């Protein structure tokens, strides 16, 4: 039976392929199909031994399958030991996966225009949102930023469908698309926005904290609503260790909220930047 409440499952790797040494895409079968909201994530491990000990949070990139035979995909960048170990796993080997976790993007508002902003590997939670919006024929544009052309997600991973929306590629070195940071591209467009369009706009953003902070500030200034997917170190991923908290505004005071449970997606105005 398809599930959408957290489950701990064993996955069997179907493929685990690197793209230009930067991004990996791993696909695994799981016992049942999982339904997820874009922005939701999984805690993934699979290497033998207790070092490293903790599973790694990865956004659910794609999921599907049929009864008794689910499938799930993640994309990841090798940044440290856990992701390096993941990248060394082979088809047939197993993964431990807890999913789906956290609160994803709120895509359920009618008649809105979405800007989807992904910095670096942030496209991993932004693409699934594009898939849902495309399927729903909602209006959206996508801004994808990276250091160089090689650090952009491979073209063939970009969600297509009937209304793929416009995609703005941005590279810091100018090797592809807009020359500059993705933030600059978004800020420039925001500045030109009419107040009326601004009121119909929602930004969904995932990427480095500095990028999210700047986008949140610009969005607030133009009264554009924005949802940001935060990251933090996690032990459990499902709200029981209180290790992953960030400061959020709670009225005029601040409180610690769990990225894994109350997030990872937060209203940008709630975040104490």
């Amino acid at each position: 039976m398809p599930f959408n409440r957290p489950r701990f499952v064993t996955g069997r790797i179907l493929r685990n392929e690197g793209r230009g040494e930067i991004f990996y895409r791993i696909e695994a079968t799981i016992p049942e199909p999982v339904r997820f909201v874009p922005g939701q994530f999984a805690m993934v491990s699979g290497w033998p031994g207790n070092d490293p000990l903790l599973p790694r949070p990865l956004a659910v990139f794609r999921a599907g399958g049929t009864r008794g035979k689910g499938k799930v995909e993640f994309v990841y960048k090798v940044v440290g030991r856990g992701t390096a170990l993941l990248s060394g796993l082979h088809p047939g080997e197993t993964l431990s996966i807890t999913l789906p976790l956290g609160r994803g993007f709120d895509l359920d508002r009618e008649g809105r225009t979405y800007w989807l902003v992904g910095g670096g590997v942030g496209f991993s939670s932004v693409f699934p949102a594009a898939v849902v919006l495309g399927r729903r024929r909602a209006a959206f544009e996508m801004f994808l930023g990276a250091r160089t052309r090689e650090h952009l997600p491979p073209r063939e991973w970009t969600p297509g469908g009937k209304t793929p929306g416009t995609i703005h590629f941005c590279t810091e070195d100018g090797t592809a698309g807009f020359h500059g940071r993705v933030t600059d591209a978004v800020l420039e467009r925001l500045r030109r926005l009419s107040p009326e369009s601004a009121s119909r706009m929602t930004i969904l953003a995932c990427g480095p904290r500095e990028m999210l902070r700047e986008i949140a500030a610009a969005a607030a200034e133009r009264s554009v609503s924005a949802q940001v997917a935060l990251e933090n170190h996690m032990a459990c991923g499902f709200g029981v260790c209180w290790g992953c908290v960030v400061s959020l505004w709670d009225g005029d005071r601040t409180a610690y909220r769990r990225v894994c449970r109350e997030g990872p997606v937060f209203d940008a105005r709630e975040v104490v930047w």
Partner: protein
Amino acid sequence: MVTPDLSVSLGGLRVKNPVMSASGTFGYGVEFTPFYDISRLGAVVVKGLSLAPTPGNPPGRIVETAAGMLNAIGLQNIGVERFVGDVVPRLEDAGATFVANIYGKTLEEYEAVARRLSEVPSLGAIEVNASCPNVREGGMAFGATTGGIAQLTERVRRCTGKTLWVKLSPNVTDIASIAKAAEGSGADAVSLINTIVGMAVDHRTRRPELSNVTGGLSGPAIKPVALRMVWEAAKAVRIPVIGVGGIQNAADALEFLLVGASAVQVGTANFRNPRACVDILVGIEAFFREQRIARLEEYRGGLQREKIP
């Protein structure tokens, strides 16, 4: 063979099996209901509760270490009142046996929390976290000296008719004498170990990894230390000893039972495998079946002193 009898008495609280969650790693218990029926566990030990809600430490609360992790959560919790009002009914609905872990910055705060919890009929036991820094003693833990542990145990003992467990800090020279002091002051059982104080820094940024600078080490890395301390404590006291520290699987749990623990608590393992506690329970049952052990007591404390050459 019939199902082995795993029930055991933990100082007044009889549990149906010796597998429990460890405080602070299991939330308030109800978070685990998507994963399995928590009433299967011997008991659910919830996150440490203080009198008022506590915000905890600033972020930079956890860091991974070799086969372990450091945490400096700072005991963020919803406070005893909301626990009793919001959580207890849900634990009752789930049919779980549950135990409240408590702490305070002063003895008076410990007492107040214990008093409030004593009014909850369904509560199985109170576990006193004696690893908390004692503000009057310059931040040394209540559990760091025999005098400190005796005073804390006695004071809480006087406020509650509930079964009282005292959870010991491993950051001491002689765990046996600490365990004895708790026993002598009215503890119905001792649980050990809490985390070992550790630290992690980043050699590039030249800063600590945790906002609190130091944190508590848990996970497989500490298992050998926990096992030794449980063994020492079990030899020193007559009250039940509850083993905690680095338990990941049924074999680990059995090791603690073998050296004299009456039950175990599973902590950090829940993070990697949310089903860790039931998996361990099932594994113990299977082992007892295989070995034709009918009752927990036949195995518990059965360590032979001599190594086979």
